[in-house]
């Protein structure tokens, strides 16, 4: 029994790690979504965190906790001068500006010889273990959960529902939005630092536009209305390829395209039919059942 569990653990260790890392990344997009802002700079923040942590442990010999702290603080510090101008932009303009930021970070690393440019850094010591990753997820969830029902939480909700009205009520909207962007940057940075020391390597092309799209998809599929939705989405979509790998030979489609196809269709179905994500599925089913009962 224990042996089998240990086998299972060994087989799925990396999948579990990815679930945790992807959860942190999904939460980093969620922080700004929770006040109605679509900011897509998280891949850039994660890249900064990953490189900061890897350089500190490998080239400066810093202890891992210190490197992780830097991986949180450095992107957070970058988020302040980034956020002040771009948070004035609304809707898709903010999304585009932050996509531009992410690409500038990625291309800056590609052109930076000290960190091996596009090849990235390899043979990073494996210092991140599963418990650290899940401790980080738990801390993030605890902090975000505490926001609910607090003065802060209500302010964020007010900004999400109607920003001009929130401002009129005396809520310092820019400060709140900036704080959430900074928090998201720190989360993404920690995720990047953990990932670098979990997979032993970082490369700039792992932090492109596609990566931030993945994070957004995790958050939206899980549900961006409640703080634990993004974690559910990240877990679901990280496990999905494992399941699809088994299924692919049965339907006669290559695993790669099948994974993309299912990801796309799941996202489309969620946006069209479950706008609050899969965490709202039980409630939605209850509503449908009640409607049917009322009709009968």
């Amino acid at each position, binding site marked *: 029994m224990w042996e089998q569990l240990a086998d299972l653990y060994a087989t799925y260790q990396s999948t579990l790690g990815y679930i945790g890392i992807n959860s942190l990344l999904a939460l980093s997009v969620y922080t700004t979504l929770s006040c109605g802002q*679509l900011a897509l700079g998280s891949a850039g923040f994660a890249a900064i965190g990953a490189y900061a942590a890897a350089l500190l442990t490998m080239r400066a010999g810093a202890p891992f906790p210190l490197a992780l702290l830097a991986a949180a603080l450095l992107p957070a510090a970058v988020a302040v001068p980034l956020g002040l*101008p*771009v948070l004035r*932009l*609304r*809707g*898709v*303009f903010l*999304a*585009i*500006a932050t*996509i*531009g*930021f992410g*690409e*500038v970070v990625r*291309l*800056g690393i*590609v*052109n930076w010889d000290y960190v091996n*440019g596009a090849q990235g850094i390899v043979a990073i010591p494996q210092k991140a273990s599963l418990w650290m990753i899940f401790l980080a997820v738990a801390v993030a969830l605890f902090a975000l959960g505490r926001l609910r029902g607090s003065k802060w939480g209500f302010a964020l909700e007010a900004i999400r529902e*109607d*920003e*001009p009205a929130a401002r009129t009520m005396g809520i310092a909207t820019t400060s709140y939005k900036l704080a959430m962007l900074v928090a998201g940057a720190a989360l993404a940075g920690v995720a990047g630092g953990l990932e670098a020391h979990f997979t032993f390597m970082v490369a700039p092309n792992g932090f492109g*536009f*596609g990566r931030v*799209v993945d994070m*957004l*998809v995790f958050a*939206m599929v899980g549900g961006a209305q409640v703080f634990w939705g993004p974690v559910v989405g990240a877990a679901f979509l990280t496990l999905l390829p494992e399941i699809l790998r088994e299924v692919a030979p049965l339907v006669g*489609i*290559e695993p*790669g*395209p*099948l*994974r*993309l*196809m299912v*990801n*796309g*269709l799941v*996202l*489309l179905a969620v*946006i*069209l039919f479950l*706008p609050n994500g899969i965490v709202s599925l039980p409630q939605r089913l209850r509503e449908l059942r009640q409607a049917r009962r009322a009709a009968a």
Partner: protein
Amino acid sequence: MGQQIINGLFLGSIYALFALGYTLVFGVLDILNLAHAAVFMLASFVALALVGHGIPILLALPLAVLFAGLLGVALERIAFRPLRGRADSNISGLISSLAMATVFEAVALEIWGPNISRFPFGTVPETQFSLFGGVVSKLQLAIIAVAVVLFLALTWLVKATRLGREVRAVAESPRAARILGVDVDRAISASFFISSALGGAAGVLFGLAFNSISPDMGRSVELKGLAVIILGGMGSMPGAVMAGFALGLTEVFVVANLGASWRDAVSFAGLFLVLVLRPRGLLGTAALREA
């Protein structure tokens, strides 16, 4: 120098064509259609498949463009129409178009595989001649010409026809347009058809020009297209064309003077600066809308 200007104009005309369709949909619906680049890619593959069946490129190009247009109409039906009227429709529309882009990419990956496909040798004439001290191929000139003709045709369509007036009315206010008897759904379908047809044309020309077609070929053009429409002013068609040419020329000069690896960084840094300093772009007139 002359050579670089020619190369820049040629690259710019593809960016301009791509961005025209992108910005048209944004102007009408206020929605960023992130599946535009996937339509660009699929049209290129369709042209390749047609050429592979022995159809000459002069016929394959319009057929692929027609396919792209119809794909755009389907895209609107599936991913945008159901979301219309939702409070957060510009963010949810962006995400549903991403979903469609993923599905399109999966289809291309399954049919054509992840590797680069190429047009067979001799699909287009390889004639070259010299102009302003540089070498230019017939294909490059044809691409610039196609882009200019399509831009003029689109301008005429939007400015002078009944359909164009309806599309502009919907862009101004869908409600008012409906009250005045405009068939809003039809006008939006038409803009998606035109937008995707232009994106498809850009895709086929891009595939011919660089002779390299792959399921992820739309990625970099997608982000550069964003830079172009932001620089030109979201929703402004002359702005998109000017910015497209400006980006093409800038990239060519950056490659020549700073090295190829800086090419993309310059366009994104430019995008970022424009958004921070002058968010409405070169020719954009509308102020940023408050929700």
